[in-house]
């Protein structure tokens, strides 16, 4: 029983990580039709930003710093590289793939290619007894953070004007423009939110994984894309549900059948695409 509890909470921690990356990716795609292959870079920037700031300002402020840097990087990428290429899908893909590769190379040149141990505050290394299992606090931290981001995103989408614009824009961007709304401001805002969430994933993922490397973002991005497709493009709720499914599946299968977790996730993706090609849900919020 304690093994199942531990596997479940560890799987949910992984799901939280996937959700933090996938939620922004999904909103960006749903609203702006941009497949952002550089999204993992925001995670890496958040992780390295936190790693760099931690010795100077402490953990919480360092995470905030990493999140802000990740959001600013996302805004910069949107304004400089993506905005001139809206409606030019092929060029967007080329630019974001190129940026992703260049970003990894830049991080390697700056911080080295090897993984670096991530600073972990003492309290994140404690364990809690839940259902007979000793669960590391870092998993709980990720889950709580993801729930907080999920609640904040849903509140933003439901209760703010920009949230309304995003939900409408995911349905019909052109019509939003035809109502006199500058939808490009919403694009920038969604990039900033997505960048901040990914950077938070980088910061807390560093605690969870214990180390960071320049390729961490790119490797997590693959699973984030799978989560986005399973959940439905543009759907925050769908991303949350899909992240839980993928995280738990991966964790349990890997434990009971070593190394098969990733294959099962791809199989789940294939089944969803065959049965529900639009993903689990098309609702934005």
């Amino acid at each position, binding site marked *: 029983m304690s093994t199942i509890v531990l596997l479940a909470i560890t799987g949910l921690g992984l799901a939280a990580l996937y959700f933090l990356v996938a939620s922004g990716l999904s909103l960006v795609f749903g609203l702006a039709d941009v497949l952002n292959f550089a999204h993992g870079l925001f995670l890496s920037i958040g992780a390295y930003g936190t790693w760099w700031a931690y010795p100077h300002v402490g953990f919480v402020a360092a995470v905030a710093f990493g999140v802000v840097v990740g959001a600013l990087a996302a805004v910069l990428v949107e304004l400089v590289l993506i905005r001139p290429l809206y409606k030019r899908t092929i060029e967007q893909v080329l630019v974001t793939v190129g940026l992703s590769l260049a970003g990894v190379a830049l991080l390697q040149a700056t911080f080295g290619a090897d993984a670096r141990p991530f600073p972990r505050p003492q309290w994140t290394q404690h364990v809690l007894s839940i259902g007979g299992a000793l669960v590391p606090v870092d998993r709980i931290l990720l889950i709580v953070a993801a729930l907080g981001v999920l609640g904040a995103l849903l509140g933003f989408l439901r209760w703010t004007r920009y949230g309304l614009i995003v939900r409408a824009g995911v349905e019909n961007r*052109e019509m939003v423009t035809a109502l006199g709304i500058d939808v490009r401001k919403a694009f920038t805002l969604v990039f900033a939110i997505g960048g901040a969430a990914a950077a938070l994933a980088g910061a807390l993922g560093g605690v969870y994984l214990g180390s960071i490397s320049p390729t961490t973002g790119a490797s997590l991005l693959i699973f984030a894309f799978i989560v986005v497709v399973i959940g439905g493009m543009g759907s925050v709720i769908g991303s949350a549900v899909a992240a839980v499914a993928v995280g738990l599946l991966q964790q349990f299968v890997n434990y009971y059948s070593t190394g098969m977790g990733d294959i099962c996730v791809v199989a789940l993706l294939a089944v969803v695409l065959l049965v529900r090609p639009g993903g689990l849900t098309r609702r934005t919020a």
Partner: protein
Amino acid sequence: MILSLKDVSVRLSGLHILQGISFDVAASGITVLLGRNGVGKTTTLRAILGLAPATGSLTFEGQSIAGQRTHRLVQSGLGYVPEDRCVFAGLTVAENLRLAALREPNYDLVFELFPVLKQRLSQTAGSLSGGQQQMLSLGRVLLNSHKLLLVDEPTKGLAPKVVTEVAVALELVSQRVPVLLVEQNLAVVRRLAADAVVLASGRVAWTGSATTLLGDASLTKSLLGVGH
């Protein structure tokens, strides 16, 4: 006139949809844009709004609007009711209206014309009937004080009773603001329109009084391919 098009052309996917059309829209009443299917009526409205790439001269209230971004044009007074309603199905009626409200929205006018919308504020737009969705689509632009409305086939696919309701609403609206209307229903055109512009094969084939056009059976037949 409030809107003037001179030698406006649109090419889409290699097709020359509009081939140098020119016409004016009067500063009051309803000007109807007619023509058979596929002649470029919807494209004309989209070109005016900057939703389709156009060349040529487009002037609104004497100012050139060619190349301006769509949201700016709407903010400057062009209201748009698209073909097929384009309501946001996942948003409630209240959210659809709130989204469209720009400055000092006139909810009273909208609810006076379409009381059903007030009764269904919390209902998602996707669950409304076709007629109610059309009312919502019209209501969204009537919230704001536009200087010209571009309305694309508002009665398409509606039941006769709802067609009458929409026509009555447009008649009332046109007393406040001029309308450029794309419409296939000639009974509605006869009831509403003062001026008519007929497109054929991407060109202006005829302009003049709507009454004159519809009063001449052979002209109507040759231009629109229908008797009445």
